[in-house]
């Protein structure tokens, strides 16, 4: 049954409908905030298939891209300070986080200097490393939106239950709806929002509903097959044309109105919301997740918290900030594909497999 969501004939039919509906209307701009949606859009050539007056913009959908330089640098400093104090830390993080550049290098560079840095697929792998190395401290540098914050909270629950003392995290988790709200407040213009399917799995359709109430913007929660995204676009066009400020759940095979309540309970057991910096976007109110006071013993910064200098977010000329705001596409950047490639990335959007620049480069961007 699910094959139909990748079916060419079904996609073609929806596309024809989109063309019909879009005839004669003014330009519509729809934003998504998810690297995996960008992957579907670019891989399937959806931008080139849509009528000219329907535009898809890519927003801040890459948590690794927006992780502040200061936090990466602080984590590297923690490794150095700990070594001076004769404590060896095993640092674990995800593969794309490992390569994100800062003005003083990446975690990959840190490994080349002889520090123990390991790539993991899951925080569960980090937990297993901690169990196997009881004499060492394992720190998981933990980026990600709600979809990743939930596994972190789930793992912490086991760690607390088992009393595993040599495992800490460095939380750089962020929340997605406040980022969209910040873009709307800053004046980024779009006519509809394609909500990220798996963030919505955790927070539910209800987690987005307030944006429609507050800003009158139509939304669709969409899945990740080409048919899902095309259906989402068609739904948004219809909502805009009818002037209906509604939120529709296209990805109802996975997403519920209330979301994953158990995951939410775990997140709110361990974390509290705070204002937080996003690389290249500045501080966004109530957009970060910090461990609650009663769980401070799980956070590495409780033990090591070295000062770090203020550093620039991006290299000169890097358009990653505008790309994350949905104001530019990678091809408008002077570095793209020339001085900036996945092998030698200049900006964070070229590193992560969820970064818009990386995705454009990988698929040769059918525009």
């Amino acid at each position, binding site marked *: *049954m*699910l094959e*139909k*969501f990748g079916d060419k004939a*079904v996609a073609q*039919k*929806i596309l024809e*409908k989109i063309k019909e509906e879009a005839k004669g209307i003014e330009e519509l701009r729809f934003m998504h905030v*998810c*690297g*995996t*949606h960008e*992957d579907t859009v670019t891989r399937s050539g959806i931008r080139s298939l849509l009528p000219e007056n329907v535009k898809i913009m890519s927003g801040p*959908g*890459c*948590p*690794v891209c927006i992780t502040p330089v200061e936090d990466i640098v602080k984590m590297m400093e923690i490794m150095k300070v700990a070594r001076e104090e004769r404590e060896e830390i095993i640092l674990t993080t*995800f593969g794309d986080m490992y390569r994100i550049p800062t003005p003083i290098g990446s975690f990959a560079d840190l490994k080349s200097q002889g520090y123990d840095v390991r790539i993991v*697929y*899951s*925080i*569960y*792998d980090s937990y297993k490393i901690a169990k196997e190395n009881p004499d060492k401290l394992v720190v998981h540098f933990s*980026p*990600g*939106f709600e*979809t*990743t914050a*939930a*596994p972190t909270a*789930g*793992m912490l*629950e*086991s760690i607390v239950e088992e009393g595993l003392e040599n495992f800490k995290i460095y939380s750089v988790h962020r929340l997605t709806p406040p980022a969209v709200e910040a873009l709307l407040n800053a004046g980024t213009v779009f006519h509809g929002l394609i909500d*990220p*399917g*798996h*963030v919505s*799995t*955790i927070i539910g359709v209800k987690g987005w509903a307030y944006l429609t109430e507050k800003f009158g913007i139509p939304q669709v929660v969409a899945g*990740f097959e080409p048919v899902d995204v095309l*259906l989402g676009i068609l739904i948004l066009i219809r909502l805009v044309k009818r002037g209906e400020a509604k939120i529709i759940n*296209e990805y*109802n*095979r*996975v*997403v*519920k109105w209330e979301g*994953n309540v*158990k*995951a939410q309970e*775990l997140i709110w057991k361990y974390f509290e919301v705070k204002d937080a910096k996003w690389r290249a976007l500045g501080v966004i109110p109530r957009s970060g997740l910090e461990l609650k006071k009663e769980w401070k013993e799980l956070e590495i910064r409780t033990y090591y918290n070295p000062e770090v200098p203020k550093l620039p977010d991006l290299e000169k000329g890097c358009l990653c900030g505008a790309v994350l705001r949905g104001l530019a596409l990678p091809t408008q950047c002077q570095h793209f594909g020339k001085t900036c490639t996945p092998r030698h990335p200049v900006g964070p959007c070229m590193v992560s*497999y*969820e970064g818009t620049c990386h995705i454009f480069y990988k698929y040769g961007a059918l525009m």
Partner: protein
Amino acid sequence: MCLAIPGKVVEIKGNVGIVDFGGIRREVRLDLLSDVKVGDYVIVHTGFAIEKLDERRAREILEAWEEVFSVIGGE
């Protein structure tokens, strides 16, 4: 960080399940779901099952849209 894939639960031991992703089997944490059974399809993100997949609802939405097509498109 939305990349998550569906797989079928083939074994459960406490908080850990074995999930079959089209022939490849991996350990998956089940901490975020309370009612997973062997045979369920789950969506897995960074090694954690984040939700069950409801095939019936998948069918419903496609059928609903096919109905819309047939009414509007006169097919």
